[in-house]
């Protein structure tokens, strides 16, 4: 935050930040430290942390990047809930005390920086990408895979996941079971299982339907409650369970993956639409304008 900008804004109130500090190099056990922060209009928790770092304690560590709820880096445990620090204004917490801790269910690297390696390794385990049998089509695409609007709507909300890990921090099963795949990876797995372009069901089922997969979900719904992007991981897990149950009854046969659409014939472009810019990648031998 710009200092002059802070000074220009009227201070609404002063809040007490209680931040969990931990420095493994210093062999300190995690402990709370207090800071008084003047709050201005629109100031987020992330802005508050930045103000502390600039004015009170430069050793304070956390992870952040975009400051607008897109990158998912600044997940923290704020006033008892996993939230994005950039996505929550201090005045909206309705408290003069802001308690900030690193996300639960993760190891702490330092201060408010959680170790997300477990999240990403579980995410990778469900193979979160389109798997097709026609590998050559994926390597050298000749067209687009067909997908209707309804087919897109079946999974699109699950594709909004930004891998912030808040759902894993909120999940009570993840808290007790290290082996549990967790809401993030299970949702990612279901997102691709329900994508009509995908043919990788058999490769993902080993994780999704394992003894530490969807069946361990207690349907607490905490994952869906804390998701900053409105994704409903609990729904994805229940849908994956329903799918397995219906297949147990012999319903819901394996679907055939969508095919490549043939190019649209006999069309004329509208005159008022400007031409697409020249391709900047994949071209050989063409020069770009300076």
């Amino acid at each position, binding site marked *: 935050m710009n200092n002059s900008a802070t000074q220009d804004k009227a201070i609404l109130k002063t809040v007490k930040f209680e931040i969990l500090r931990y420095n493994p190099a210093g062999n300190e056990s995690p402990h709370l430290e207090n800071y008084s922060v003047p709050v201005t209009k629109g100031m987020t928790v992330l802005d508050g942390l930045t103000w502390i770092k600039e004015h009170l304690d430069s050793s304070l560590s956390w992870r952040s990047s975009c400051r607008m709820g897109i990158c998912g880096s600044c997940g923290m445990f704020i006033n008892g809930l996993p939230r994005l620090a950039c996505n929550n204004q201090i005045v909206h917490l309705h408290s003069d005390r802001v308690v900030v801790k690193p996300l639960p269910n993760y190891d702490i690297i330092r201060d408010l920086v959680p170790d997300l390696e477990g999240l990403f390794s579980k995410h990778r385990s469900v193979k979160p990408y389109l798997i097709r049998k026609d590998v050559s089509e994926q390597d050298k695409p000749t067209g687009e895979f067909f997908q209707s609007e309804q087919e897109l709507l079946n999974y699109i909300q699950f594709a909004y996941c930004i891998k912030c890990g808040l759902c894993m921090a909120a999940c009570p099963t993840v808290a007790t079971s290290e082996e549990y795949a967790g809401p993030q990876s299970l949702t990612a797995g279901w997102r691709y299982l329900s994508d009509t372009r995908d043919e990788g069901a058999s490769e993902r089922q080993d994780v999704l339907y394992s003894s530490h997969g969807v069946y*361990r979900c207690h349907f607490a719904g905490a994952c869906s409650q804390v998701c900053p992007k409105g994704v409903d991981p609990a729904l994805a897990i229940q849908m994956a369970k329903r799918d397995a149950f219906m297949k147990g009854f012999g319903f819901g046969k394996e679907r055939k993956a969508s095919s490549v659409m043939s190019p649209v014939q006999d069309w004329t472009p509208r005159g008022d639409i400007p031409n697409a810019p020249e391709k900047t990648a994949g071209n050989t031998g063409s020069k770009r304008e300076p």
Partner: protein
Amino acid sequence: MRESRLWFWHILSAIVILVLLGLHMGTKHLSELLHMIGIGSGDPVQSAQVFHRSQQAVYMITYILLLGTGLFHGLYGLRSIFFELSLSKTLEKLIGGVLAVAGIALFVYGSYVAVLLFQTSGV
């Protein structure tokens, strides 16, 4: 997938238990209500009534069915609790095996009692 099959039977057993326990509640604990609409007679928990029911094939089958579904549902639930304790794979397999053996043993013993009561000539 093995876990999918187990979970499928877990859910199916829950539905069966719901029906059988509904029948149990109706015949044993709402007997007065049933008497009012002309179903059943006498006190259902009297020893003679219990033996009388046990000697009917329908009751014997429902007893064994309830025993089997109840055991499977309960023991699978217990296994799920153990599996959430971050145990080693070996221990998980051991627990699964012990619960399976215990379940089968209890089912065999319970079914034997139900069949024995069915064959008893009464009191």
